[in-house]
């Protein structure tokens, strides 16, 4: 799920960045620092969308660095248990398949793939129904349900399932 939230961060800035462009420098450093990172609580920071407020700077003794408290708006992404996600399949093997939804890596084990889909090895490994009508392979787009999540500092892992109504392939790369 995406959220638009306000977060706060204390930014340390070297004195060489002071002057007319101070604000711009702060903002670009903020983007560089937080975009693409994760926290267990908020999830993956997709983008900084605005600055609410920059507080008074505090000069650090000895170093000359100044710390500014910055309140900023950002879009974060965090998957939840029970959430339905759309993802792109990255790898298929006999254990199941891996898929990605932005920064999230999802594993769907063959326990959680419908029983009528069987693994087919070969040049392009895939899971296919016995009548051949549905096929999951690399680059397929699938709709899946999250049943477990773990958010690390840089990565988000999920366990997914497609063994439920309305889940499974939504776009087959071979038919495009």
């Amino acid at each position, binding site marked *: 799920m995406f959220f638009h939230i306000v977060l706060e961060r*204390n930014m340390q800035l070297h004195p060489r960045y002071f002057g007319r462009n101070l604000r711009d420098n702060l903002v670009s450093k903020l983007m560089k620092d937080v975009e693409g990172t994760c926290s267990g609580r908020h999830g993956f920071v997709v983008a900084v969308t605005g600055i609410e407020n920059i507080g008074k700077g505090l000069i650090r003794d000895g170093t000359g660095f100044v710390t500014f408290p910055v309140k900023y708006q950002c879009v974060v992404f965090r998957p939840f248990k029970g959430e339905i996600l759309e993802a792109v399949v990255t790898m298929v093997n*006999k254990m199941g398949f891996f898929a990605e939804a932005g920064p999230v890596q999802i594993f769907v084990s063959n326990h959680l793939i419908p029983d009528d889909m069987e693994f087919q090895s070969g040049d392009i490994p895939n899971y296919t129904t016995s009548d051949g009508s549905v096929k999951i392979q690399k680059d397929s787009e699938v709709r899946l349900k999250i049943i*477990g999540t773990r958010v690390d500092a840089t990565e988000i892992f999920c366990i997914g399932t497609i063994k439920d109504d309305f889940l499974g392939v939504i776009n087959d790369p071979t038919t495009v």
Partner: protein
Amino acid sequence: MSFATDSPSPLHSSSSDDFATFLDTALDSNSPSHQDEIQNQDDDDDDDDNAQSVRIKRHKVESIEETEASTSEGTVKQNLVVAEESVEVDVCSHPGSFGNMCIRCGQKLDGESGVTLSYIHKDLRLHDQEISRLRSTDMKDLLRHKKLNLVLDLDHTLLNSTMLMDLNSEEGHLTTETDSLEDVSKGSLFKLHHIHMMTKLRPFVRTFLKEASKMFEMYIYTMGDRPYALEMAKLLDPGGEYFNSKVISRDDGTQKHQKGLDVLLGQESAVLILDDTENAWMKHKDNLILMERYNFFASSCRQFGFNCKSLAELKSDESEPDGALAKILEVLKQVHSRFFDELQEDLAGRDVRQVLKTVRSEVLSGCVLVFSRIVHSALPSLRKMSQQMGAICLTELDPSVTHVVATDVGTEKSRWAVKEGKFLVHPRWIEATNYFWEKQPEENFIVKKKE
């Protein structure tokens, strides 16, 4: 606790307070352990206020739930149902984990049990039972496609690599002869600047892989590290047809200095291994086809103590149609066709190790050998090799003897061989026969007079 679903939909939440409340409850019910924050330096009054209000909100919610539970019987019943369901979920045997979550029920798992299949994904682990379950389904799938598993070593088996700085002056000519990295499928000698290496693919390797892939599911298994292994896989399989997520490096093994089939999702009775290092496979010698070492560069000749010119120095190479890979491909074809076409047993009961043993035992069948003055330390292994290839080894001469194996023409047995018109061969005849799985022409292994 089912609070997450009862809370106002967070999709519409515009204030971060609501979000924090939502998260607190969602996280509390799932994983109280995750408190790793990025912005942990915050120590602002504002933030405290924020947290305070969250706490109050949560408190309110809890008290509402409490009163509900105590006043309404319905809620109590519902709770019971939830409890029963969760018991059912607990029955999961947790067959493996991805990022420390069960791959089947999603539950967080502690500890690091099972085998890590890092060559597939660094965070994927499977338990023994799950591996054997996968192996047996894999077996069915393989047999249906008339395939077996083939594990291929890289260095000195499929190719030879050297550090650029180890190239000697006589090999300098190679640096101008390397093939383009644009389309590696056409070349065989590559300079890989970014890893400071030069790699020469063994002659015939492309045909070998193409033909073998029709009979086998192929894996790469190398003692090299992961980046090197992937780099080599790119050269051997630029189209990604053969080794898709089946590249195993030393970083993925479960034992130091040993290669094991435990990380392989194939049954041992259906695996063949090609490797030039026998000692890496102590537990799986019956699956192994030992390869003659491919030493193209001088540095690798030195590594194995050969005091001769390298192929590169001699501006030469192994033969394409008659080299080791071409010969071994024939052996693989033979083993494969016997396994599927000639064995009588039920498919599932067949064992490729047995087939390999039988094929090997026919190589020297009908030969009767006597060894004459062979260095003591070399004798047992020569004798064992010969016997595995179906030869009979005698200690004394008798009319049935067909070959005398010696390094010296002057011994009594050697002279007897010449007089009786028997073959007199150098021990290398046995080694070569062993590598090529085919009786080598004796005239190429004549014992020379000692000077």
